[in-house]
């Protein structure tokens, strides 16, 4: 694998024009994240968390600066290439679930692969079983609870086995009990080697992540950007364990 960090955000800026005024959503953002991390991104409303996740996930492109994922520069890809990148490498989880109302849970999970030649149908079934939704597969989202919807969305994010999972306020629309379950699920996924980035306002959720960065006015204020030792809160022992698992998988 590459020598550089898994995610490298290098002095990225993004401006939005709002009528007469411009908003600096990202303002010289620098960030490095290692593979297998689980990072909570916190910060006040409007600080640029969502914008950052969109950039990393290839939904949006920066005005200046570069973003490298696994050594690949994604900030200069065109729209078609970015769609391809999102499909193969990124799993998105949204605050409002963004499921397709007319499709069943299982079909929703299969949406990202619906144009594939040989879609992994069985994998969709397995993922839903794993999410504890075995007897909910044929239900449409309207018949599911918030937590169940979010678990369907997580299964959808996993269908292509992405290396990176981006969750923007994944627990913003569900109660705290269910939120805890969802976070445990995220931890499991992280244990399996997925790199997870969660933007959240919820301290409890952030507290259960392995590390945390704080964002304000479009740049990292507290944290651990650039300092690899400070970034990871795991003990060295755990880290070694995790590496082993990744290798095994």
């Amino acid at each position, binding site marked *: 694998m590459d020598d550089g960090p898994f995610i490298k955000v290098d002095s990225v800026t993004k401006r939005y024009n709002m009528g007469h005024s411009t908003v600096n959503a990202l303002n010289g953002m620098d960030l490095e994240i290692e593979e297998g991390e689980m990072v909570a991104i916190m910060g006040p409303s409007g600080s640029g968390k*969502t914008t950052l996740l*969109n950039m990393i*996930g290839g*939904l*949006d492109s920066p005005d200046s600066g570069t973003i490298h994922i696994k050594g690949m520069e994604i900030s200069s890809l065109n*729209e*078609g290439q970015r*769609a*391809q*990148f*999102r*499909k*193969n490498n*990124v799993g*998105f989880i*949204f605050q*409002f679930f*963004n499921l*397709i*109302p*007319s*499709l069943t849970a*299982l*079909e929703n999970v*299969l*949406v*990202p692969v*619906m*144009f594939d030649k040989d*879609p992994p*149908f*069985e*994998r*969709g*079934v*397995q*993922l839903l079983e*794993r999410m504890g939704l075995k007897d909910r597969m044929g239900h449409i989202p309207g018949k599911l609870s918030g937590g169940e919807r979010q678990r369907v969305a997580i299964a*959808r*994010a*996993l269908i*292509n*086995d992405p290396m990176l999972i981006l969750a*923007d306020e994944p627990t913003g629309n569900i109660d705290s009990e269910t939120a805890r379950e969802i976070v445990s699920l995220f931890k*499991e*996924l992280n*244990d*399996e080697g997925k790199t997870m980035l969660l933007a959240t306002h919820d301290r409890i959720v952030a507290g259960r992540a392995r590390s945390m960065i704080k964002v304000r006015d479009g740049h990292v204020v507290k944290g651990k950007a650039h300092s690899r030792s400070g970034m990871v809160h795991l003990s060295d022992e755990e880290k070694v364990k995790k590496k082993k*698992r990744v290798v095994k*998988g």
Partner: protein
Amino acid sequence: MEKRSTSLRSISRKERASANRNVRFGPITYISRDVWRNRSRTIMSLSSIAALSFLFVLFMSMDQGFSDFFEDDIGVPSDEQKELYEVKGVMENWVYLISALCMALMVLVVANTGIITVLERKQELATLRAIGISLPKVATLVAGSLSIILYGGILIGTLLGMACIPILDRVNVSLFSDGIGFPFSFDPSTIVLSLLIGTGAGLLGSSLPLFILTQSSPLEVLRDG
């Protein structure tokens, strides 16, 4: 924990075999679900298109009927034939006028349905793009729904027309005063023609909604509708 991680990473052959074999999901399923979900609107658009292509077939057959009527016997024209011949010239013109009107309204129906589709499902289409389905593929899905409505409507309208024409032939349709029965005859080339006109209307009508789609950003996914 070990067990879970294997279940995600590698799925054994046995598990594959036991998985639900009936599951099939592709663009066709997606499109048919979409058409079915908005069925009341689908039916309305479909029947509008059907009515318009019915009108088209009706007037084309009227025109054809007149042509056939004069082709049959070329001898000394009777008074009736002379008079009907006068009507024939006008008839052709009405055929053009009605065809143009049908075409214009078909363009409007397709454009209307398409605009509604891309505006109403802005978020859903943005979600598809956010999770990695490329813009041309998303456009294919939208165009697929529109084609079902368009060609379904043309099919129904043309079949209805074909069924009605033998009945209407030489029957005196009089609503408010005396009339005469017009000769009608259905020419199979009308089917091709209405398909062509429908396709033209479809291309014209869907260009605006598809343009709106290309202008929209996958970032729409974040907007709280």
